[in-house]
């Protein structure tokens, strides 16, 4: 028998397990607790804050970044990144506006299709040419923006108000704005896909240990391709909302969406190194970061302080920092991730 003291792995294993439990609890439920606290404090502090209208409008305002964050969640779970979502959405909004006279189905469908194609191109370049996701999607960020401006002739494109297209962004169903339905619907599907399909689990496996995933016979390249295509399609859907909500295709909108989406995903506890993630928490992350602006408006209305809108970005940044530092404390170290 090997002559080895038995104390080391045991105690460290117990410690690891404890730490992992705490981490997963804080990571999974911490955001939810934070959101609950924010909601509680805000509803106590401000009259009328917890009104159906206010909340649903605040969510609707965040639906577009929210959809981008959903796609981003899957991309980041494979340890990739998609910087192109904002300009893809802008391009899709232009196309949707231009085709809006053909009705809601054609308009929205075209927007999704545009995003899908651009996302597919991202995936092809990443998997087939072997260029880093960061660079590939950075180029797509510029390219899609160019396409948007080109198709729109450098100005916003008004949508047709006769065809019913604007219903998609402005309509209600059962009292809730349609974008909220779309957002929750998409996240609902996302949660099911992640937790109850092979594809969802394989996405996590690819991000968790690509080499192992390959050895287990998973089609790694195909999974990545699908993930970027999905992210593009969701950005396209966000573009459709953008066009119909504001009545115009907006070639210059969507700047910085990618980073807001990444921030929401990170706040939600999905690790940028891939392999761990939760669609549900990303939604909470979106709402948490999204509500900060809304709360700021109410706080100013109280009249004690006058915080300009600028503070919301400062607060968001600080929030991201705190979350990242906390995660860093708790996160179980990923092993085997090699060099550099």
């Amino acid at each position, binding site marked *: 028998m090997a002559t080895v003291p038995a104390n080391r792995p045991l105690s460290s294993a117990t410690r690891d397990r404890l730490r992992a439990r705490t981490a997963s609890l804080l990571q999974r439920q911490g955001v939810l607790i934070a959101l609950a606290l924010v909601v509680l404090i805000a509803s106590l502090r401000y009259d009328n804050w917890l009104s159906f209208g206010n909340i649903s409008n605040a969510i609707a305002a965040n639906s577009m970044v929210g959809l981008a964050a959903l796609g981003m969640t899957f991309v980041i779970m494979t340890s990739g990144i998609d910087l192109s979502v904002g300009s893809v959405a802008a391009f899709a909004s232009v196309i949707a506006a231009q085709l809006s006279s053909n009705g809601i189905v054609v308009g929205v469908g075209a927007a999704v299709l545009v995003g899908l194609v651009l996302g597919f191109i991202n995936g092809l370049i990443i998997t087939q040419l072997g260029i880093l996701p960061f660079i590939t999607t950075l180029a797509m960020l510029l390219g899609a923006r*160019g396409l948007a401006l080109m198709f729109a002739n450098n100005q916003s494109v008004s949508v047709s108000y006769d065809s019913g297209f604007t219903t998609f962004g402005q309509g209600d169903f059962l009292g809730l704005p349609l974008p909220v339905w779309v957002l929750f619907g998409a996240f609902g599907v996302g949660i099911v896909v992640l937790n109850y399909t092979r594809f969802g689990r394989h996405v996590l496996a690819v991000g968790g240990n690509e080499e192992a995933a390959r050895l287990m016979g998973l089609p790694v390249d195909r999974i990545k391709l699908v993930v970027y295509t999905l992210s593009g399609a969701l950005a396209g859907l966000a573009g459709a909302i953008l066009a119909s909500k504001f009545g115009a295709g907006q070639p210059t909108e969507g700047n910085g969406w990618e980073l807001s989406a990444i921030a929401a995903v990170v706040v939600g506890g999905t690790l940028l190194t891939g392999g761990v993630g939760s669609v549900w928490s990303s939604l909470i992350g979106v709402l948490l970061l999204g509500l900060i602006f809304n709360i700021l408006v109410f706080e100013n209305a109280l009249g004690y302080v006058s915080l300009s809108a600028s503070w919301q970005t400062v607060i968001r940044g600080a929030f991201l920092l705190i979350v990242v530092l906390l995660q860093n404390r708790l996160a179980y170290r990923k092993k085997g991730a090699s060099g550099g």
Partner: protein
Amino acid sequence: MRELDKAQVQSPDGASMGGGGSLPSNPKPTRRPVISDRVRDFGQTYGAIVALALLLLFNAAFTRNFLTSQTLNINLIQVSTIVIVATGMTLVIATGGIDLSVGSLMAISGALAPLIFLSKTFPFSDPVLGIILAFVLPVLAVGVFGFFNGTLVTYFKIQPIIATLVLYIAGRGIAQVFTNGKLQNFNNPSFQYIGTGRPFEIPFQVILMVLVVALFAWVLRKTVFGRYVLAVGGNEEAARLSGVPVTRVKLAVYVISGMLAGLAGLVAIARNSSSDANLVGLGLELDAIAAVAVGGTALTGGRATIVGTLLGALIIQLIRYTLVANQIPDSAAQVVKAAIIVAAVYIQRPRQG
């Protein structure tokens, strides 16, 4: 345990490291090279300069009024802030990191400078002192923000992309808070010399750009620090074992990146006679990264060229100018720019990553 695998990789190395460990160390099918190695070698070494030369020749031949000092100045002015920022970015990327916060840091320094030289609350007895402080303090202040980035990356071991995302988001807000979100207009010729001065008919910001590039190209090539930067990006563990102060080197590149962004912010507001925290440096981080990538610096670290970054920025700018000058819309030019970035990075990939 590791040793077994190593043996497999190392024994072939014994005969020829030329293969650079090109062993099929995993079952992933190796892709056939799309272009021949020779083309790729050439592309890596001379690609940027040849592309730039071709662009210049093409324009000299086909674009009207290209070879006028005015045209050249326009193009150079337009890249100057990008290049200054991209110089710092090159250093950061050379260590294997990235700095997304530069655009926001530009906004911060752009917001601080007018606050200083327009300051009524504590007027400087000496206006010259005010101007000097307006140059120095903002740059130092964003240097501190750069230090913050570096601290997150080194001591807290947060991935650079997330660490700098914090200030990307918060930085612009901080700038807006400084200025209460208001546009600051000013007319201060001595401060604005940095953006509008024209010694010898050459825009001062272009001179500044050339100086920054020359300085850091020299630093990267000739100083211990420069060599350390590349060593850290090339093989961090080997660098550490050779006594390279890895943490300090990484901290330094983020500080430098921050300070250069601060300088670029000053140029940008001086040029416009106004400082708008919403707009100064907006999206510049991406332009800078694109210039670095096209210039031939590896995004994985270890290989970097500051002059290449200058060339990269010039190429992107000239392509856009060429297309626009030849009646192709700016938006289409942007699509071409995207394709160029992908193509440039693809061509310049080392033979085996």
